[in-house]
């Protein structure tokens, strides 16, 4: 079992942000069910939290700008950590993210263990 970071990217900054607030509202139950399903497999390491959409971005030379950080259109919308049997398993779990349907992108990253 390895630990994986699951990062849900979505459009937070543009005027017609995707998913829309209504879509997010509709996604709450399926989202909780998705997380519950991961937890039921004892694969949830750190549950997602609700992050605000405000944010700050800190750069060199004490430069602080209002966030959230978005080089392209997607910012971080949600972060969680899971346990999985390699990338295939982690990706299979990530595919269950209900926000994918509304245009989110899910990034899967494996933790590198020191040895």
């Amino acid at each position, binding site marked *: 079992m390895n630990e994986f970071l699951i990062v849900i990217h979505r459009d937070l900054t543009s005027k017609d942000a995707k998913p829309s607030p209504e879509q997010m509202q509709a996604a709450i139950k399926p989202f909780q069910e998705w*997380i519950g399903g991961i937890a039921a497999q004892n694969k949830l390491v750190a549950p997602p939290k609700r992050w605000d959409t405000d944010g700050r971005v800190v750069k060199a030379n004490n430069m602080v700008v209002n966030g959230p950080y978005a080089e392209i259109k997607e910012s971080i919308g949600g972060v969680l950590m899971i346990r999985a049997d390699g990338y295939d398993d982690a990706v299979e779990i990530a595919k269950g993210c209900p926000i994918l349907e509304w245009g989110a992108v899910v990034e899967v990253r494996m933790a590198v263990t020191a040895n």
Partner: protein
Amino acid sequence: MLMEEQVLLPHLFRTEYRKMVSVLCHLFGIEHIEVAEDIVSETFLIATETWSIKGLPDNPVAWLYTVAKNKTRNYLKRTALFEQKLLPEIRYRTSEAEEMELVFSGRNIADSQLAMIFAVCHPAIPFESQVALALNLLCGFGAQEIADAFLTNKEVIYKRINRAKHKLKEEKIRIEHPLAAEVNGRLDTVLTTVYLLFSEGYYASSQNTVLRRELCEEAMRLIELLILNPDTNTPAVHALLALMCFHCSRFDARTGEHGEMILYADQDESRWDWSLVKKGTVHLNRAASGSVLTKYHLEAGIAYWHTLKADSLEKWGHILGLYNELLILEYSPIAALNRTFALAKVRGARIAIAEAEKLGLTDNHFYHSLLGNLYSGLDDGKALQHFEIAFDLANSPGDKGAISKNIRRLKAAGQTGGAGK
């Protein structure tokens, strides 16, 4: 008179032994726990002898307290222990003159019992010993009764109790009211122990339902002691009591005539104890304050929705949501299985089967019972296979009985299906 006293003595032993032991332990400190027990046991011995000759006194409880007080006083005078160790201690705690008068006041009993709960439920003591000592000292259960409840023998229980006492002395755990600042951290451990004690009563494999019910009632009584004290009267404590009330309301309905388990879906809700459901609802409402959501809140919520017998999408939607939250807070195989059952009720058996197969609990008989259930009607062959594995994996006669009922039901359905072709 003789009859009256035969009924009264065991009752008084159950209700007063623990109070007197708590007060004396509180007074003497943990190092002299056996002295406290001896004094109280001798008091009951004298009561048995005297009452059988002279009949019952007007106020048996006051009689017991007076005898215990005198015995304590004599003991302290008799032993060097008093001069050397206890006197400075007692002087330190209260003015000595009023001490003996105060010993068995209602207030002191409540304080002493609370102090004892916190001492016995100390995390340094291994769980099995903790439960044995709690039942013995806080609930007044004899070693034989505890042994019966845990399907073991008296010697094992004595060992566990002594181990717990040894640990209490070794760690020099003080029997005292925890400081308000400590209550929060230590209350968690207390709740865990009492909850486990309750679960032993509720789920234990012992067929002795009277005894198991008493375990549950004792656990509830301990929680009520916590509620009576303002420092420990927290929303989580109310949530735990609510949970226990809801579970206990089904105690009679879940056991058949021959001691077999009756599953929730098959229970006759007219046999549920609706006064306990009501009481649970009151405490669930009191639990709904503050900002901390504990697993007891979630489990009490789940148990609450189960008190509505009729199936509805609303009910199972709530239960599923609560199980999701519970699992996110803390994983347990039984919560994972129950969540999958709720998922089947909300989203259908096929989706639930796919989720169930990801759980990785193939050596758990509840897992196979769940799959047996979900496959019933969809693929009876597979359902039967799972129930048969479950039967082999189950240990208790109650569980085996419930599973074989399902096997018989499926086989009977198979035969009528065959005949209809």
